[in-house]
């Protein structure tokens, strides 16, 4: 049975759960959010990704109700939520510091929000037990936050923010305090929980790997603006700007001028011995400045010039970064430019074909790179 692809953003019939409409937020002279318009759909796992100070946390705090937009409006299920205080919103937040109440047990932490509603006592107890089970914390209900480990605290914070079954769950750098191994496990757990509960998640992170792993769509932000919103694959394979290409993963940028040499095909004169060939759906005029962005893993490395490669340049190995499963070769071209090429270490390292100072050929296909305007 073929699964339908989850893509409500492509369906004009779908009503967004959250709408930012021309939202601007200023703190004094500082513009944290600059005229931002964005829809987020139900059941989405939406990631806000960007460097610190790009406004991602401000967006989240506006959704939670801790900040109010200076201009524009934020709609939740079509309702403007500007005047609604945080304690009256069907939105819950998981804080970066977890913000667990240190004087209450795990059980009472999770029950805190439920007790603020008019839920009967036995229903509260049942709901808390359900949340403890969901986050695999049933054994720890009687403990205080300081009596459990960091990973468990993270799960308590998640259980507490999910207990009231919010329409929208906000996660502020939820995994920042965990070590790498635990973080990876927890990412998959988060995705499972998001799927089981069907809650819409908005996650703020500066870790691009984390955003790519968990999110259905990633919004890359810079200086209060969203630069690109797309699925992780599109963000990685088809970035719309040099900023996004550079922010997500590793990339080589060749700067030059474009000249059409076929339908949707361009020759880029970047200062090398011969111009590079690249395809692009985006039109470029002759002589227009262009950036060719190529991911290191899409560049092959070989001793001889490959016969059928669309692009090939010669250089010498400057540095090798051994990452275990992969090695990244830093290759210096005659122009002085350093290009990174990555290859999987399918053989033992002692049998490596190239070493420092070796002359090598780098090659990539015409479709390997993305041609970007400067």
């Amino acid at each position, binding site marked *: 049975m073929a699964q339908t692809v989850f893509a409500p953003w492509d369906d004009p019939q779908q009503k967004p759960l959250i709408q930012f409409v021309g939202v601007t937020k200023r703190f004094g002279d500082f513009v944290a959010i600059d005229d931002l318009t964005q829809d987020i759909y139900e059941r989405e796992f939406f990631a806000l990704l960007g460097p610190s100070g790009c406004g991602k946390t401000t967006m989240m705090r506006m959704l939670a109700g801790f900040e109010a937009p200076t201009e524009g409006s934020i709609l939740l299920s079509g309702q403007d939520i500007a005047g609604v205080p*945080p*304690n009256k919103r069907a939105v819950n937040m998981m804080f970066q510091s977890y*913000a667990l109440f240190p004087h209450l047990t795990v059980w009472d932490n999770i029950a*805190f929000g439920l007790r603020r*509603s008019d839920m009967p006592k036995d229903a509260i107890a049942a709901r808390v037990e359900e949340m403890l089970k969901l986050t695999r914390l049933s054994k720890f209900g009687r*403990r205080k936050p300081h*009596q459990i480990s960091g990973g468990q605290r993270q799960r308590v914070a998640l259980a507490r923010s999910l207990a009231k079954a919010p329409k929208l769950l906000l996660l502020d750098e939820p995994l920042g305090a965990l070590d790498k191994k635990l973080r990876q496990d927890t990412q998959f757990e988060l995705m499972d929980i998001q799927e089981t509960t069907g809650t819409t998640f908005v996650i703020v992170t500066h870790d691009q790997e984390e955003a790519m792993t968990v999110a259905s769509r990633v919004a890359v932000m810079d200086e209060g603006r969203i630069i690109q919103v797309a699925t992780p694959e599109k963000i990685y394979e088809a970035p719309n700007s040099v900023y996004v290409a550079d922010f997500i993963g590793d990339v080589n940028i060749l700067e030059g001028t474009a000249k059409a040499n076929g339908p949707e095909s361009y020759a880029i004169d970047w200062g090398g011995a011969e111009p590079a060939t690249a395809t692009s759906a985006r039109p470029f005029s002759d002589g227009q400045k262009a950036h060719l962005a190529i991911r290191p893993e899409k560049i092959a490395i070989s001793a001889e010039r490959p016969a059928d490669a669309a692009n090939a340049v010669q250089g010498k190995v400057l540095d090798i970064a051994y990452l275990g499963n992969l090695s990244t070769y830093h290759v210096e071209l005659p122009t002085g430019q350093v290009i990174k090429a990555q290859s999987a270490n399918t053989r033992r390292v002692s049998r490596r074909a190239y070493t420092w100072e070796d002359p090598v050929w780098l090659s990539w296909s015409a479709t390997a790179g993305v041609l970007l305007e400067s």
Partner: protein
Amino acid sequence: MNRLSPFNVVSLTFGFAFLYLPMLILVIFSFNSSKLVTVWAGFSTKWYGTLFQNEAFLDAAWVTLKVAVMSSTFATVLGTMAAYVLVRGGRFMGRTLFSGMIYAPLVMPEVITGLSLLLLFIGIGLDRGVMTIVLAHTTFSMCYVSVVVSSRLATFDRSLEEAALDLGASQFDAFRLVTLPIIAPAVISGWLLAFTLSLDDLVIASFATGPSATTLPMKIWSSVRLGVSPEINALSSILIGIVSVGVITASLMSKRHAVRVRREEQAAQRTA
């Protein structure tokens, strides 16, 4: 355990002798059987006996206790409220002025505080007695409470309150259920500070009181002017005893709590 060098032993001895010798002499002479304070005539506890028959002293002790409990409670409520507003109120008009002004009574000479309160009480025609001492003590000790509580609030993780609001608590519930229990140790030490300040205040109480109410420090002061009696030594020894027991218990309890928390945290990390 480190061994102390001779120099350190000497400085420690001198320092502590300077602090505690006067009190030690006072306690020793409270067990003197002679009526003459400076002449040792053998061990006796009779002065403790006569002290508990001295109505005037017992009355004064009762007044002092009443004043201390009431004034420190009022001061704690007011001081905590002031600290909360100053730390959490954001940048409202006149905040800097207010937070400067709350510290002013700390440096104000007691004589001036006392005198100005006296003038105020006379001016508004308040009968001076226990209530006026309570008011006066509340006035000067609330700023101490406010200092203690605001230093705790300044390091308080704001997201805890935000989390409470986010989970549907009202502002008041967030304070009552989250902030207050967490800053309780600071509030309690503020109360204890206000309590001891009220207990040993002589100057302000003398200004604020009328003929109907005499506190223990005032009583001691007036009796000493007629000559030091061994009874006063006994009374002072009891006060020293009460204060020492209180301080030692409090510090032992907080130390044991800290050790327990650390041990439990380590245990949680190991089993993770």
